[in-house]
């Protein structure tokens, strides 16, 4: 059930939450977090669909904040929904006028007591989420550089540079199945990896993160090659016994090749945003491995930048990242 509140404020929205819950006959609060979704009008629907799906795994109070034009008389409008497919409750809050510069004043009073706060920017994250007025309220901040219209690699590097505990990017989440397979491959084949290569479509931030992760964990040079995609299409780990290769050309099914074994198919589907978001919400503490990878990518860029310029802007068909940042 949805109720619209026009020219309202936080107290009225909070009262509406309580009223709607009581009206629905369930005053219990089973919600485990507050999810603040910062989104523009254009992407609000799809973002809310994803949040609704994720709310089934993580019942949450979802506060979707749509920032309008910052000029004119300040006005707060809200649509409060309880039930209707939500695993918790949701307020779609539209801000216009001067209040657009102070969205935290609207959101702060609506945070659930004592439980974690997660901020998610489905499109167009701030350069430094941790110092964003809404990002500051949250202990987990989720960005998605894949949705940047252009310069995605640069956007990712910016996020890595601005890394603060609690930040993650969905480009990293997209990698989990790849990383799981690669880790399992080395469980099965305890071999020393002597080199590696990642092949992906152009300007894929996940591929950049995968290269950084492999390079930092394996301490070898990792080449990045460009293909037509979709997404990441191949990862190869070179070993003395032969290559371990996972190759996926259709975004759904991969072929797993390893020394001494027949080639085997393995399902490796590209996941949708609701699944990615649900995975993110499972961990509300700092992701140490992402932190290390982001740090590695950022540091690699700095040292490389001094020698050869920014690779993100001068990407050729093949380039590589080494541990010391020496181009090869």
């Amino acid at each position: 059930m949805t109720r619209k509140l026009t020219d309202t404020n936080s107290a009225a929205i909070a009262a509406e939450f309580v009223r709607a819950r009581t009206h629905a006959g369930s005053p219990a609060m089973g919600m485990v977090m507050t999810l603040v979704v910062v989104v523009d009008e254009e992407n609000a629907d799809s973002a809310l669909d994803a949040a609704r799906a994720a709310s089934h795994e993580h019942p949450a109070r979802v506060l979707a904040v749509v920032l309008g034009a910052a000029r004119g008389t300040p006005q707060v409008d809200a649509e409060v929904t309880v039930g209707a497919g939500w695993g918790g409750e949701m307020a779609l809050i539209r801000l216009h006028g001067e209040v657009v510069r102070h969205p935290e004043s609207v959101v702060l009073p609506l945070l659930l007591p004592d439980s974690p706060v997660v901020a998610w920017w489905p499109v167009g994250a701030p350069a430094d989420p941790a110092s964003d007025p809404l990002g500051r309220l949250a202990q987990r901040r989720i960005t998605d550089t894949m949705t940047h219209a252009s310069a995605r690699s640069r956007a990712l590097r910016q996020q890595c540079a601005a890394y603060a505990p609690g930040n993650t990017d969905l480009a990293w989440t997209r990698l989990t199945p790849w990383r799981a397979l690669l880790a399992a491959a080395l469980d099965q084949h305890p071999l020393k990896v002597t080199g590696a290569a990642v092949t992906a479509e152009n300007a894929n931030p996940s591929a950049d993160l995968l290269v950084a992760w492999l390079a930092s964990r394996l301490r070898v040079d990792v080449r990045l090659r460009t293909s037509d995609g979709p997404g990441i299409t191949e990862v190869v780990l070179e070993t003395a016994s032969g290559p371990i290769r996972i190759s996926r050309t259709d975004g759904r099914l991969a072929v797993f090749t390893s020394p001494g074994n027949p080639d085997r198919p393995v399902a490796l589907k590209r996941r949708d945003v609701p699944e990615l978001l649900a995975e993110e919400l499972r961990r509300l503490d700092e992701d140490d491995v992402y932190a290390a990878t982001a740090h590695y990518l950022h540091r690699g860029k700095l040292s490389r930048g001094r020698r050869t310029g920014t690779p993100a802007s001068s990407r050729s068909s093949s380039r590589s990242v080494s541990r010391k940042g020496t181009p090869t």
Partner: protein
Amino acid sequence: MTPRRVQGDGQQAAHRNPLRDPQDRRLPRIAGPCGLVLFGVTGDLSRKKVMPAIYDLANRGLLPPGFSLTGFARRDWADEDFAKVVHDSVKEHSRTPFREEVWDQLAEGFRFVPGDFDDDVAFDKLRSTIEELDESRGTGGNHAFYLAIPPSFFGNVVGQLKEHGLADTDGGSWRRVVVEKPFGHDLSSARRLNAILDDVFPDGSIFRIDHYLGKETVQNILALRFANMMFEPIWNANYVDHVQITMAEDVGIGGRAGYYDGIGAARDVIQNHLLQLMSLVAMEEPAAFDAQALRMEKQKVLSSVRLPADLGATTARGQYAAGWAGGEKVPGFLQEQGISASSTTETYAAVTLHVDNRRWAGVPFYLRTGKRLGRRVTEVAIVFKRAPHQLFNPTATEDLTQNTLVIRVQPDEGMTVRFGSKVPGTAMEIRDVTMDFAYGGTFTEASPEAYERLILDVLLGDPPLFPRHEEVELSWQILDPILGFWAKQDAKGKRPEPYDSGGWGPASADAMLARDGRVWRRP
């Protein structure tokens, strides 16, 4: 559960996988190369649980590339016919959406071996099939044998596995066997069964599955008790009055007459499921959160269990009668197809147990289970003593009963706390209220079906929460005298008491608690 064993199987911990990091909790554990051989592919268990769970695991990317599933049954089938059976069962029962590409890669690893359990040729064929899979699919000699068949055939099958060298490993690989409850029908048969299994497979390779008791539930109970400060101090005889453990089913025996007749509620549910729940609730804090420490504490509790002297007054049993349940007309147990009109098999059982240790002295544990009861529910209720002194006058607290903490196992896993609160208004009146916590969304929708977890644990070689034969035998030691007492009652012509379908069991069960001045909760 055991962080020590992050590695796949057949490898030494000496090799450190650089891509593994204990901090990296996103990465799921994927089973190493392996295959599963399923005996009894046509049964309900295989079609409704095992096959869909295998597909769901594949869909979640948790099965190794090249995973293979071999069916063994007395059917004149080709591999494709078997694949069709699995396909239908997956389409109908799988939890995750059906995806063609997942199915295709999984189906490539399906094989079928037709034959009887005593057919040497068939087991030779099974052996060559497995060897072919190692070759073509890279299963690496790692195979689990899932015995989804009646326990009376275990001996046959396990003997054949041994005879045809199917249980032998070559050092680096593993062979495991999975058996379902019931683990025997009394102490001596359980010992015989264990002896058969032990003869062929080492103890760590035998997985006894109690699908009622999902790993998730066990971990939830342990987390509740030992991760919190507020429960453990009152978790003893000083504060607890008694404990009620219930597993109720709303269905009858359905088409399982052949299995159920002669087994009954106590053997089917109390021996494994309820006693496991009880040991988790009553045990001391384990020295570590690992398989061995947990098992030790469970065994300690089970060995401290004492039966009351008068079993007639402290146990109850019944059979559901014809009537109406949930708006449907249902037959009584004795009218069910395949059940003799003189059957004394109980469909309801309630027992009283004492735990003779300092923590629980004087606190009875009431365990009950039954079919065709009011609704499907499994729960553990810790009922606390009344406040020793009541400040408020008796009229104010007339409606106040005992504080209760209920661990709901299913459905709607969660916890309820019941306590007294003032009724709004001018008069001083205190009444019970409940506070409810549902794992609700947090775990339900995304949480894997118990079978997925069980099968994955088997493939990973992670047995911590599966009962070992010591626990199974201790449980039978507790139950055997009660079963013996009931058999004597039968001999005297005292049959199980009929009870209304759709209700909460026979009058004798209510009388059993009334003697102690207590009542059953309506769960």
